[in-house]
């Protein structure tokens, strides 16, 4: 952990969306850095959607939960949509008992379903459903 100052969660970019897979147990500053980076990248790349994969996260406490809520709220203000995917069942149970139900955050079971949700909300129903 000597490179603490430059530590960052990588953000991948597709033509329309930003993708983040959180694979480390984030300390608070790292979570704030991610929040700032995502907000900046939405503006820089005119991204319309953000997908955050938290399937590797074994703990979501009130701080991380607040960060997820902040990202969703900030992206909404910037005309982008956030979907959180892959929450582990034990994390979901704990989060609700903690008192955090992530209001205003859209969720999906996995990356595929999350992408589908983002595309549908941007382009309407898939496969020509009229």
């Amino acid at each position, binding site marked *: *952990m000597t490179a*603490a100052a430059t530590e960052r969660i990588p953000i991948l970019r597709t033509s329309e969306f930003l993708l983040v897979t959180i694979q480390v*147990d*984030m*300390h*608070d*500053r790292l979570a704030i850095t991610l929040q700032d980076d995502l907000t900046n990248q939405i503006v820089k790349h005119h991204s319309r959607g953000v997908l955050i994969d938290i399937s590797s996260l*074994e*703990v*979501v*406490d*009130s*701080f991380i*939960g*607040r960060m997820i809520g902040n990202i969703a709220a900030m992206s909404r203000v910037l005309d982008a949509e956030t979907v959180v995917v892959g929450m*582990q*069942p*034990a*994390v979901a*149970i*704990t989060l609700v*008992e*903690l*008192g*955090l139900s992530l209001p205003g955050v859209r969720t999906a079971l996995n990356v595929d379903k999350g992408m589908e949700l983002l595309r549908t909300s941007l382009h309407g129903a898939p496969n020509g459903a009229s």
Partner: protein
Amino acid sequence: MRSSEDVVLVRQLVRALAIKLGFSLVDQTKIVTAASELARNTVDYGGGGTVRAQTLSEGQRVGLRLTFEDKGPGIENVDLVMKDGYTTGGGLGLGLGGARRLSNQFDIVSRPGEGTRVSITRWR
């Protein structure tokens, strides 16, 4: 515990202990999450402090007790800070109340000017 990196270390330590005691995944997650809230409070509001872990056994029952202690400013009104949504730090104010809900036993002792001690227990 002094920094937010230490909060991560506490989470990892508590996870390892809970696994060793045979806690279910949900119970592991609950006590690790509660520990994370309390460790953060110790660092952010208590100016740093210590955590002590004790393994308990009572007949057939096995439990884990965690005691967080700081020598920070203490809390004037404990009932008030236990309320969900109350915060002095700009957070969500779920830390203490949430940690209590995620634990089987919860004790808090605080003296203004002397510090705060919070202890949680979760049984398997």
